């Protein structure tokens, strides 16, 4: 029987050392290669139908092409999480609108969007581009009005104060769209985030004199408008159409002072590993493509933001066509918003809202 020599000799020691050294050198290279081939995207996203649409129109084709694994965390109000984790984030993408993305961007919690990072950004209409986000669709926001109860309809934000609608006016909850609509009304009445007196006075009158009702979310709006509890309220265009499709005679109106337009997409979280960041930008780039936006618009009934698609809408999306004037009027009010000032004064403004508007 041949006995295998196991005692270390100088040669085996050197060979072993070389192997260990090579392994040590290879480890960062391997992990670097693994990082360069990031195969997982971690996304903070609201649930419900919005997630289903996003999954169907944007995620599924992307995953089929890249084999990426998606990890979801669903819910609302992820801003505190992103701020708290901004030095060591655990998530790659977070669903945001222009308001929250501008604030998070100023705090360097999310990445800036450039055409270098996102080539399809060049195809997005300037009205729907912000420094840290561009919409995959845009969501026109104006007034939903029950035309059975209000045969003359409505034409302006000021119609909400019409005494004929006393007790039948809805207004979105602050943590839904109320904050944005409040700032729009404040702006229209000559206010600014550091001077909300005009907005507070107007909204105080709406609640005290016209008995406005707080509407908490899309489903609540559907319930209240269908039950005849609310005849007129600020609302999203496509969601108003859903109420109409459910059997209530409602119309969507872009107010003459200018409507609002919310853009939604997933912002790219800052300070993530390079490979994850690249993959996140890839997904965002895909969300701005003609193909992704066509599917998403079909599912949501919200107009696309890709100029090529806006100019060549397929027949089934023709009803979403908007004139350049309409597109221009949508962002009128919000373009003047100072998002950082809104963020800085949020506690003071919300406190005044609670006490003077709701408690007044």
């Amino acid at each position: 029987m041949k006995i295998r020599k196991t005692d270390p000799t100088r040669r085996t020691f050197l060979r072993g050392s070389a192997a260990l050294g090579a392994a040590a050198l290879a480890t960062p290279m391997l992990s670097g290669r693994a990082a360069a081939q990031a195969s997982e995207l971690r996304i903070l996203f609201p649930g419900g139908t919005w997630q289903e649409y996003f999954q169907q129109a944007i995620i599924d084709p992307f995953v089929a092409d890249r084999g990426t694994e998606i990890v979801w965390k669903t819910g609302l109000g992820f801003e505190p999480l992103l701020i708290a984790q901004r030095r060591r984030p655990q998530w790659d993408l977070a669903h945001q609108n222009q308001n929250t993305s501008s604030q998070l961007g100023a705090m360097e919690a999310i990445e800036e969007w450039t055409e270098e990072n996102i080539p399809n950004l060049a195809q997005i209409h300037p009205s729907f581009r912000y420094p840290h986000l561009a919409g995959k669709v845009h969501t026109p926001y104006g007034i939903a009005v029950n035309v059975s109860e209000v045969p003359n309809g409505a034409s302006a934000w000021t119609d909400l104060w019409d005494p004929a609608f006393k007790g039948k006016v809805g207004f979105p909850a602050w943590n839904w769209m109320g904050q944005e609509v409040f700032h729009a009304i404040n702006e229209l009445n000559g206010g600014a985030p550091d001077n909300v007196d005009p907005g507070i006075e107007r909204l105080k009158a709406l609640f005290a004199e016209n008995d406005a009702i707080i509407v908490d979310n899309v489903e609540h709006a559907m319930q209240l408008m269908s039950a005849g509890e609310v005849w007129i309220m600020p609302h999203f265009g496509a969601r108003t159409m859903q109420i109409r499709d459910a059997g209530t005679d409602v119309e969507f109106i872009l107010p003459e002072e200018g409507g609002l337009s919310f853009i939604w997409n997933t912002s790219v979280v800052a300070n993530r590993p390079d490979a994850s960041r690249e993959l996140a930008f890839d997904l965002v780039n895909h969300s701005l493509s003609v193909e992704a936006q066509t599917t998403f618009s079909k599912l949501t009934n919200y107009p696309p933001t890709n100029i090529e698609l806006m100019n060549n809408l397929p027949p089934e999306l023709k009803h979403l066509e908007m004139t350049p004037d309409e597109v221009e009027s949508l962002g009128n009010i919000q373009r003047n918003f100072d998002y950082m000032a809104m963020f800085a004064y949020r506690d003071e403004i919300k406190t005044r809202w609670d006490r003077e508007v709701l408690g007044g």
Partner: protein
Amino acid sequence: MNTSGRLFSTFLFSPIGIVYLLFLLAPIGFFLSMSLFRYDAFELYVPALTTENFERVLTDGYYQEIIFRTLKIAFLTSLFSLLLGYPLAYFLARSRTQWRGILMFLVIAPLMSGIIVRTYGWIVLLGSDGAVNKTLISIGLIDQPVQILNTETAVLLALVHILMPYMVFPLFSSLASQDPDVERAAGTLGAGRIRTFLEVTLPLSRTGILMGSALVFTLSAGSVVTPALLGGKDVQMLGQQIYDLVLTTLNWPLASAVAFVLVLCQFSIIALYFRGGRHGPA
């Protein structure tokens, strides 16, 4: 109890003790410390000690009103759940009918649908064109629809409905475990049915009453969705304030102070309640 008995008890209690430590005491400790930090618009909080958050919650009339309303609604929800739940639990505990299983299922059934769905159901029922107003008009009690939605009544109705199972089950358990011979003995000693109920059955079901009331009180005091959807602007409760402060205004120190006050109120009232209950008849 000897040493080995004590060791065995410690062993039995240690898993639940660890769970309470990690998921109850540690979070309360965390938000107590957060409530003593200073709010900062951009950093969310600065670890500089201050009592200003508690001063704001406890001395400001706005928060005092919300604290009072929250406790009032929680108390009334517990009271009405008890008044409505007791006869039901009594019937379920004493009934030998084959329908008992079905009735038990009906008590649990509301828990199988989400709280939001049940709350939306109340919007349909309580609206100006809803079933409640239509019924009241059809029987001639009112001429035109009355406003029920966006009032404390709406919140109370919905909370009693939603939380009723949490009252019925402890009561049922307490009533079902009573020895029926005790009631029979009271009867043979000359007590009538009412006296037997008041002096025997009711005191013996004290544990169920205490447990059910504590559960319903705690859950209703911390409710968010129901007051938000049915109470409108006039029925703000502490749970909604905490939700808004954490997620909308991002004022975590103040949210922690409000949360701590809520927990303290709940603990204090429940402690007083149980203490009072312990001194009752055996």
